[in-house]
């Protein structure tokens, strides 16, 4: 067990090195003048781009530059983002809670529905429920999130005025920036409950419905199918037959015996899903004008705001790497066979 964890932890810096190096290498195609913003702390410095280039050695060989950049990044200086109009580190702090809130709002229904429907369609294999989930899955794979999102907006905002885009309405925006509204967590919905402001909570929740529903539908497919096939595999095994032969009720056989073993791949998949949601749901946030990391990434990419693009991608990939590690470790905890 310890050796397994140790090996995985040793591997971590190597991957992080590769990720940062690849990212830096990709950006290195740009001229030093364009990359200077990666090191700038405030917009006033842009008046003397040449000084920045000189100071951080932007014309030096690539490995030297990479070293300087990494040192600056570790100090928390990721440059100044033109689109966010603030330093990248501050912008991440500003946008991340919104993305986290949306990620949670999409993740919980995805996993609950995915596991529930996956198990049901394995138990009722080839019956109508299985066929229905197969339809949900295959359309979920095939429907681009930007088409689904726009159609949902057309129906639920254009037609019925139920769920508007954005993060909150104007009145609520004023209310949450007032002095008496406290932000202990940064998650607006949670803060509203803690402050006892039900009007704010309802408004924020209404804005979350459509983006969360879009993400749920798109991501449900994979989780559902993986749960189903994993469950089918377990249900065909000998210990399940033994349990049935003992006369255990079917609910116990499915819920207690098979499900627990079938959840292994589901755990990995869900942890990766959660992190990919955190890393910025680029398309969905853009469509619903939701002020999170993903929308910022797109704005940065469209306007060639290199520090913004690099900062968000760095954040997403590091989260991804850590989630992979956690999934592996969780695996070892759940499955005793992996511990040797």
């Amino acid at each position: 067990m310890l050796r397994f964890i140790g090996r995985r932890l040793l591997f971590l810096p190597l991957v992080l090195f590769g990720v940062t190096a690849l990212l830096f290498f990709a950006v290195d195609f740009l001229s030093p003048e364009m990359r200077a913003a990666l090191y700038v702390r405030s917009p006033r410095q842009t008046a003397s781009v040449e000084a920045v280039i000189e100071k951080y050695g932007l014309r030096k060989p690539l490995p030297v530059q990479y070293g300087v950049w990494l040192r600056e990044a570790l100090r928390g200086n990721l440059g100044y983002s033109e689109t966010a109009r603030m330093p990248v580190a501050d912008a991440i702090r500003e946008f991340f809670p919104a993305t986290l809130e949306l990620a949670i709002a999409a993740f919980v229904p995805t996993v609950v529905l995915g596991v529930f429907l996956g198990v049901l369609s394995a138990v009722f294999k080839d019956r109508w429920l299985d066929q229905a989930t197969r339809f949900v899955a295959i359309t979920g794979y095939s429907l681009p999130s930007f088409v689904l999102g726009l159609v949902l907006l057309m129906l639920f905002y254009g037609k019925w005025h139920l769920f508007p885009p954005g993060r909150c309405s104007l009145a609520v925006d004023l209310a949450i920036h007032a002095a008496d509204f406290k932000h202990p967590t940064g998650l607006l919905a949670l803060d509203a409950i803690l402050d006892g402001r039900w009007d704010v909570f309802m408004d924020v929740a209404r804005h979350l419905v459509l983006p969360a529903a879009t993400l749920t539908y798109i991501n449900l497919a994979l989780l559902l199918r993986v749960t189903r096939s994993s469950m089918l595999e377990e249900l065909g095994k000998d210990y399940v037959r033994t349990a049935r032969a003992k006369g255990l009720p079917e609910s116990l056989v499915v819920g207690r015996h098979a499900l627990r073993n079938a959840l292994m791949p589901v755990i990995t998949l869900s942890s990766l899903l959660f992190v990919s949601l955190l890393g910025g749901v680029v398309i969905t946030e853009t469509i619903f004008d939701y002020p999170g990391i993903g929308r910022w990434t797109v704005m940065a990419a469209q306007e060639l705001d290199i520090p913004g693009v690099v900062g968000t991608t760095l954040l997403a990939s590091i989260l991804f790497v850590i989630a992979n590690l956690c999934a592996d470790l969780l695996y070892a905890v759940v499955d005793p066979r992996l511990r040797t």
Partner: protein
Amino acid sequence: MTARMEFWTSTFREKPLSAFGLVLIVFFILVAGLAPVLAPADRRAYDPYLIPEFGYSPDPLPPSREHPFGTTQEQFDLYYGMVWGTRTAFRVALSVVAVALAAGLLVGGVSGFYGGWLDDLLMRLTDVVLAFPALLLAVVIVAVLGPSLEHVMLSVAAVSWPSYARLLRGEVLALKGREFVLAARGLGASDARILFKHILPNAVYPLLVYASLDVGNIVITAAALSFLGLGAPIGYADWGQLVSLSRNWILGAPGRPFAYWYTILIPGGAIFLFVLGWNLVGDAVRDILDPRSVSR
């Protein structure tokens, strides 16, 4: 009819949904092939992929006799864009698959065949690329290279090849110790000859299956980049680009919420059906080639 063909036709008969997918793909192939007939380009047109513009009105116009699918904002003809956009979709899918396949063959082949430090190095490289969320890395690459359709294809290929390389490496590893490879080596064949003549032809089949399953993904990613304005310029026949032109109009006109339904439903529906076709066929292909999943 050979037994193999019968097996394929019977699979499609038993899976009507997959047969439907095949019909969809054939339909799109026909549209792409017949594009110059279905929507003839102006003789003076500089590039047939540029959608002709009819007037300067900023509002989209509904389907009419002249414009069967209506027009987008700034009067680009949707029908023309849809027909030539089919070609763009195939071009993107085939180019990306070709590049990813070639890179996968090279990296996976070398990695599996030679092993050792080279294998370690190349596989860690695939680890690193796979450590990024695919769409985000593609966004970075296009942002750095500048927006254009070619760069979209390049960036999608750049995030797709690791899966191909890993798959091929596994195949090569399995084949390396087989008798016919040892025999070739015994006869004194060179490394290159063994790899390209004996191993790769036998290892490439699963890769092609994976590619057919991957096409849907590729088209969605490329369309997403175009939608974000990182792909083809405005007015180029590209479905993702046409969907992005609908963004200002989805709320409709006052009192008529669905006034501009055609701007989103037509290009969006085309992307959906195209990807659906590939996914349904990919589903059947996987069932045919993976005997374990045969449950009937």
